[in-house]
């Protein structure tokens, strides 16, 4: 019981920090609400899809910006997609970085886009590692026989 208690406290702290630091927004809470005993892996599954999809998008974006000349319409389309998916899981800072990126696309600024891409990558890998840690904690709690309370 002590082990579970400790793990649950860690989980609560981690989750609260993610919201406090603005890495996650209300949409992530919506996803947590959709998880129940009949759909116990829902959040993990969505997050996993997001990671996979995002890494493909980042590859495409990197490739597209290396082209000469840059097809800003294509780049913008990818960023739009990325903005959408990050918004859907509540990855707020990734989404915000995408908004800035789109502005650079509109301005057709190659340097601006390069920097924006770096920022998006930075935010993505940050939320990825934090979410992986969160999901791992949840697995540990379940393995120890505990339950995952819904925490805001």
């Amino acid at each position, binding site marked *: 019981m002590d082990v579970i208690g400790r793990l649950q406290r860690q989980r609560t702290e981690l989750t609260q920090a993610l919201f406090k630091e603005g890495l996650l927004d209300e*949409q992530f809470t*919506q*996803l947590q*609400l*959709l998880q129940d005993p009949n*759909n116990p892996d*829902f959040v993990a*599954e*969505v997050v996993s*899809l*997001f990671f996979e*999809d995002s890494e493909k998008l980042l590859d495409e974006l990197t490739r597209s910006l290396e082209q000469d000349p840059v097809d800003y319409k294509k780049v913008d389309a990818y960023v*739009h*997609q990325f*903005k*959408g*998916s990050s*918004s*859907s*899981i*509540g990855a707020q800072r990734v989404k915000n970085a995408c908004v800035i990126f789109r502005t650079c696309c509109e301005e057709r600024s190659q340097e601006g886009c390069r920097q924006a891409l770096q920022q998006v990558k930075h935010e993505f890998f940050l939320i990825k590692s934090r979410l992986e840690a969160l999901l791992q904690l949840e697995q540990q709690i379940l393995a120890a026989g505990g339950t995952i309370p819904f925490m805001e």
Partner: protein
Amino acid sequence: MARTNYSRTLETNLQNASQHSSHAPGTPEIHVLAVDDSIIDRKVIERLLKTSFYKVTSVDSALRALEVLGIEDGHSPSTANNFEVNMIITDYCMPEMTGYDLLKKVKENAGLKEIPVVIMSSENVPTRIERCLEEGAKEFIIKPVQLEDVKRLGEHIMNAMNKNSGVACSKRKLELEDCQSRKSANRRPHIRGLRVIA
């Protein structure tokens, strides 16, 4: 005749529902077709819809949606809606064919035009929204779609079912009232169509 097809569909659904449904007996089996090119959004909308509705089919393009609806090129209108779709919820921005184009195709088809169509978009563009509503979309939801958006959708389905069956079933009326009472004080950004269902 669209009306006859729908009445028969409703009857079949009710029969099926009483045999197979995990919902309350007598509740019609509601089938929602979700269209979105984003795999993440499809997963989320599927789960959201399943909290309220019994059956969800999700496809990744408007062209696939047309296949499900039975009106891809070459099919006669009489095969339309063999999968008995009660509502279509579609993303606006999709490659090849937009949600707006899909809406138009549905509304142009005698066998399908009564199906309520809801459009989703991450972008709040007033002209876009107006265009969709004018074309017959019941609602335009700004993404990300949330639970309270989905709870509201039941109303459109019930309206369509009541209209088509021609019978004011007291149980369905109860569900409609139940849907209305779930409207929360803080409304999510959504634009309700101006058309009133008779």
